[in-house]
């Protein structure tokens, strides 16, 4: 049972490059989230989705884009990478109704460094 799978686990980017962090879940969850965690800090919500075709901004959406074409996949796109985007990125999913969200299942994280 894979749960939430993120790729890549590690990536180094040059300033101005673009990339996509992949996230897929096999639990048929409706709700998916992207968080970033800077060293020694908490988790900041970037974008979230309540179902296929629906996405919304979180606390820190600038510099990122998402799409949700299927229930399973929720890729995060970084355009024009900047050093401030150096962070660990976590994808998570949950299955219950949004206003009474149940347990979040997290992926292992993707560590991104922008030089």
């Amino acid at each position: 049972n894979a749960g939430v799978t993120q790729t890549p686990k590690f990536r180094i980017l040059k300033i101005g490059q673009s990339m996509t962090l992949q996230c897929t879940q096999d639990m048929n969850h409706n709700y998916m989230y992207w968080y970033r965690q800077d060293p020694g800090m908490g988790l900041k919500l970037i974008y979230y989705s309540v179902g296929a075709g629906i996405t919304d901004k979180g606390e820190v959406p600038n510099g990122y884009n998402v799409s949700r074409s299927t229930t399973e996949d929720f890729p995060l796109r970084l355009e024009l990478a900047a050093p401030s985007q150096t962070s660990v990125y976590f994808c998570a999913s949950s299955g219950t109704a949004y206003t009474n969200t149940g347990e979040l299942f997290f992926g292992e994280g993707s560590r991104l460094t922008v030089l």
Partner: protein
Amino acid sequence: QQPVQSPQAVILREGEDAVINCSSSKALYSVHWYRQKHGEAPVFLMILLKGGEQKGHEKISASFNEKKQQSSLYLTASQLSYSGTYFCGTESDKLIFGTGTRLQVFP
């Protein structure tokens, strides 16, 4: 608005108790609690729903005061395995995590 947790850090001996508080400036539908060990993803502990309380994990319990928009996590008879950073997650229109509390338990 990010919920504020207190204290920022706690150091305990095995067997001691601790309380971690989480306070929000917004009305809440629910409060989540997670523990994160260094280099790992957060792991769910429990969720407290509006109008109720749910105990979910070992000797760890929590309360939810809706009127004060606060939650507290109670760790009793702490074990070495309790070490990590604890985050509350508060939900009004979306799930936002708190500032975190680092807990260290020593033998």
